[in-house]
Each structure stands twice: as C-alpha cells, then as structure tokens.
C-alpha cells in the first residue's frame, strides 16, 4: 500500500463513518467527521502510524522508500492499521460530539432568543437602565438545526454552482462529475423543501414530535451534502 492508497482509504473510512452517524442521528458528529480538517489530521496520524509500525530498516536496501510495502514478518498485520485508523476516527468523533453544545447560550435579542428591551428609570437620580427581557424561551434546538442546515445547504450550493460554472472544462475531465451531481440535484431540492416544511411546522408548534421530524429532514440534507462532496472530491486531472 502506498501513501496515496492510504490517504484514499482514510477518506473512504471517514465518509462511511459520516454516513453511518448521519443515519443514526448524530448529525453534528457526522458533519465534524466529514470536515476537511478532520480528514487532514487523521491522514497525518495514519501516515505516521503506518510508517512507524511498517517501515523496515534493511541495510541491503539501496534506496529506502517512505512507506515500503510490508514484508513477511511485519510487526502488525494490515487489519490493525484499519483498526487504529478506525479507533482514531471514532475517538475524535465522540470527543468532538461531546464538546459540541456544551456551555453554549444564545444571546438575548437574537432571532432564536427573542427579547424586548425593558427601560427602567431611576426616579431618584434619573439614571436609565436598559435590560433585555426574554419574550419567549430561547430555542437552541432550532438554532442548532438551522446552523447545520445552513452549512449543508452551502456545501450543496458550492458543489452545484462550481460544476455548473465550469461545466465545459469538467465535462472534458469526466462526464461522471456532472452525472453524479445530476443524480443528487432533484433529491437535494426535495430534501431542502422537506426541511423547510418541517421547520415551519416546528416553529408553529415546537413539540418533541416536530423536533424529531426536523432532525430527520436535516439528516437527509446532510447525507446528500456528503454525497455531493464525495462526487466533487473525485475531480482529478488525468
């Protein structure tokens, strides 16, 4: 296995993990797994681990290569590499998911924490105090869903727009780029419409059942956003 294959393997594992997390309700964690910084960091870790455990020093080698193929009698079997990368990815995901949402507050007066200004005048000295008073409970759940949707929508928009703006050039590289995104486009449109409907329903009546429906609609958008990222990541110049 060379370094390019290792990098590709790590990215495929992360894509699969992201899809799994999305399907099972961990939308925030899935978005983190699919972030470019995550892929870059795990690639660095994977390359280090592979070179540490698999690199053999042989005095008879004329030109040692960075990642030589494992010879018979290597320290660890290849399956352990997948295990190490998988554990690193899972650990990072759960760590990041645990960090998400902790100690977060919505500033009063924002769209998700509506408030009104209460002006108090001290009759003794005439001083004026202005306080924000909440007019309805802050809705962190809606904020989190909208923030995740905003990001996923932007990723889809970027993929579709870049492909459309550079269609002639990308078509020469591979017709599969347009075809892959064309398979996603109608589903993405429906998914965005479904999210907006679920959002309207939740805002009108913020019940748990409507919140569940909102999360489900968000997951579909995020899954399609991940698929569009995979489709555009295959752009290579041959």
């Amino acid at each position, binding site marked *: 296995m060379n370094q390019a294959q290792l990098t590709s393997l790590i990215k495929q594992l992360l894509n699969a993990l992201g899809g799994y997390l999305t399907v099972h309700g961990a939308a925030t964690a899935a978005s983190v797994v699919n972030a470019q910084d995550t892929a870059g960091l795990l690639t660095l870790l994977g390359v280090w681990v592979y070179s540490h455990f698999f690199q053999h020093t042989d005095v008879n080698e004329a030109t040692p290569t960075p990642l030589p193929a494992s010879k018979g009698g290597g320290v660890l079997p290849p399956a352990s590499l997948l295990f190490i990368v998988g554990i690193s990815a899972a650990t990072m995901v759960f760590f990041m998911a645990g960090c998400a949402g*902790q100690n977060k507050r919505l500033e009063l007066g*924002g769209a998700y924490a509506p408030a009104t200004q209460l002006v108090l005048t001290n009759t003794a000295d005439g001083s004026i105090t202005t306080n924000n008073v909440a007019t309805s409970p802050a809705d962190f759940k809606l904020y989190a869903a909208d923030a995740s949707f905003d990001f996923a929508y932007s990723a889809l928009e970027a993929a579709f727009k870049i492909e459309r703006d550079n*269609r002639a050039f990308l078509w020469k590289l591979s017709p599969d780029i347009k075809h892959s995104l064309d398979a996603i486009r109608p589903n993405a449109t429906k998914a965005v419409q479904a999210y907006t409907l679920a959002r309207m329903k939740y805002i009108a009546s913020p019940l748990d059942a409507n919140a569940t429906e909102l999360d489900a609609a968000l997951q579909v958008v995020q899954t399609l956003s991940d698929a569009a990222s995979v489709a555009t990541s295959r752009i290579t110049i041959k």
Partner: protein
Amino acid sequence: MSAATLALIIQGFQAAIQAAPQLKVLVVKAKDYITSLFEGGLISKETQDAIHAHVDAVSAAAQAGALPPEWSVEPDPS
C-alpha cells in the same frame, strides 16, 4: 506539451479562479461552524440573525420552487 493539453490546463486555472469566491464562502462557513462546535459561551445576536435570515430566504425560495438554477438538472454539453 500539446496545444490541447495546454488549453486544458489554462481552462483548469480559469475554473479554479471562478470557483474561488464560492469556495471562500464555504470555507468561511465551515470554519465558523466547526469553531462553534468547540467554543463555549455566547452565540451572538448577529450570528443568530445571519443564520436565521439565510435559512428564511432559502425556505421561501424552496417553497416557491425558486432555488438557484444550479440546483436544476440541465442537458449534457454537446
């Protein structure tokens, strides 16, 4: 290097330059989103209002069947 290859490389640079503004928007959003996963504390009114306004606009467009043209399937180049 053949003329066809050179033309393809130049088109590649042009494509990259054209994609840069869209990618910049996405990179900024990604950075803000991932940063918000780790930072505790207050989510500002400005951040809330910006996200809410954008999602409202997308919702209105989606319900009206008026998403941007790049969301539609168009014929393959001839």
